[in-house]
């Protein structure tokens, strides 16, 4: 494991600590999907995107952009944004509290740096990313637009409207990731509303499809490289990323039951015991 990958690994542990502490502090929020997407978001923000957190503005000209379509996993996004320098990590303590910029679901109204559109009502982020990616093309910018979606979110029809649109308009500066954990609020995706042949669905919609392990930083590194290599050739790219909901906290792992439940004091202590880090808490 390289030194940088090792540092990313420590960051992932710290972000996971942030997630469980934020959700515990608010007595509400969504730890399961947040823990499951931690490795992806740390890798994306610390190792992949060309960004300038200190000079953030809404337009993001000349930068790569990211859209979180499954906005309920805001804890992981807020933690990663703050630790990447978009805002002070101390602000994580305000998550879901009155007068906070860290709304339950991401929003622009409070002006939190790093967020360019509200999300929470599912299925809308891919359309927004299509527009942002087309704007980059119209401006002649050679930059990437990334998105993340839940697998349950793919049950929303608008996702497939956007999938058609992206392929039809050859939006090949768009790279989407699916948090393929197989879980949603009411149970497994297979039981609630089976997505069937997900790879085949995206392929038949005209996308280039990749798969990767969403917890192995080396595998994620390879997936990003492969995605960018496949993009730019007339097709948008989707990466189906195998993850475990609740990853890193044993009693939250692999179950939909921790989709939107906060840990109590004892559970928090147990979780933090499993997430020892050389970094520092907010």
């Amino acid at each position, binding site marked *: 494991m390289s030194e940088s990958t090792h540092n990313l690994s420590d960051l992932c542990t710290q972000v996971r600590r942030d997630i469980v502490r934020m959700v515990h502090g608010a007595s509400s929020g969504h730890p399961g999907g947040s823990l499951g997407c931690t490795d992806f978001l740390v890798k994306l923000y610390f190792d992949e995107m060309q960004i300038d957190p200190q000079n953030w503005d809404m337009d993001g000209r000349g930068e790569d952009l990211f859209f979180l379509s499954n906005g309920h996993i805001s804890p992981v996004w807020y933690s990663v944004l703050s630790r990447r320098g978009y805002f002070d990590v101390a602000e994580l303590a305000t998550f879901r509290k009155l007068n906070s910029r860290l709304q339950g679901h991401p*929003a622009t109204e409070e002006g939190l740096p790093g967020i360019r559109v*509200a*999300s929470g*009502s599912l299925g809308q982020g891919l359309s927004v990313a299509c527009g942002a990616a087309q*704007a980059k093309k119209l401006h002649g910018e050679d930059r990437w637009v990334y998105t993340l979606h839940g697998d349950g979110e793919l049950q929303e029809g*608008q996702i497939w*409207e*956007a999938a058609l649109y992206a392929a039809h308009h050859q939006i090949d500066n768009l790279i989407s990731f699916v948090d393929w954990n197989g879980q949603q609020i009411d149970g497994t995706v297979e039981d609630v509303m089976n997505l069937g042949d997900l790879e085949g669905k995206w392929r038949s919609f005209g996308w280039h499809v990749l798969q990767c392990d969403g917890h192995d930083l080396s595998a994620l590194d390879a997936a990003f490289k492969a995605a960018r290599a496949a993009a730019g050739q007339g097709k948008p790219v989707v990466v189906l990323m195998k993850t475990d909901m609740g990853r890193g906290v044993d009693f939250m792992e692999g179950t939909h039951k921790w989709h939107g439940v906060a840990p109590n004091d004892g559970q928090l202590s147990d979780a933090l015991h499993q997430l020892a880090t050389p970094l520092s808490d907010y």
Partner: protein
Amino acid sequence: MIDFISADEATLDGLTRKDTRSGFGQGLLEVGQAHDNVVALCADLTGSLKMNAFKDAFPERFKQAGIAEANMIGVAAGLTIGGIIPFTGTFANFSTGRVYDQIRQSVAYSEKNVKICASHCGLTLGEDGATHQILEDVGMMKMLPNMTVIHTCDYEQTRNATHAVAAHHGPVYFRFGRPKVPMITEADTPFVIGKARRVMTGSDVTIVTNGHLVWNSILAARQLAAEGISVDLLDMHTIKPLDNAALLESVGRTHCVVSAEEHQRNGGLGESVAACLAQHQPTPQRFVAVEDQFGESGTPAQLLEKYGLGPAAIVDACKAAIAVKQGMMAS
């Protein structure tokens, strides 16, 4: 009494008729020529929205969205990131009810500079019937924080409003229609968002109206004038923000008001007028609007008559409002 649809040009004071949607198409072409960051999107109704001229002039800046309106609204929201000004085009029904949550989250709450351009509003869509005749769109849009709501009355006002909409920073719902209506305003008639246009000055009753009912209100005012009743007529093309000052100034002189609109009474212009007056200057009001019903197939003229939006209905409403005022003054 003759309404604007069935009247021949002689009875329209020689005014020619054009559709408001064509005013939008011309205005869109002009703002496209003036600003290279204007982009148009359409959901498979390019001809109906009169967006062909823009499409032909700026093929790179025209995005066909197909029959997928929810995605179109989201794409428009995304295009604003980086400074593009997107204009979406489809029928009013598919511009609002079908995509309410997309507008709410990705546009209004996210404060995106999207221009939602909606043709074929109201009953005057005609024969297609109630599935397409949306009469609730103004209500849905005016309830959204950050949203500006505009409904224009003729070709030139719609063309001029398109320029104003492009220059305004923030989300706008821009409502216009299908039928050809008399050209009441001139090419150089000022259009200012949030500032009502005074059509006539009078002292007995105020009519506050917009859209296609501006012409019907003019006809009603002429009839009333013949009976010795003087009408103060305001074209309230911007429903939100409402021009409270113009409204209060007018009713301060007339002491009664009629609102007239091609929309449900619930959620419409008249409701905004009533809210303003109740708070600032309680005033007798009568409503010319659709009364909690869906529309149906028919010609535009037949539908306006059947649903009580014709000139005769406006005349009756004015007399009723004046009667209430006189009763209050007598008591």
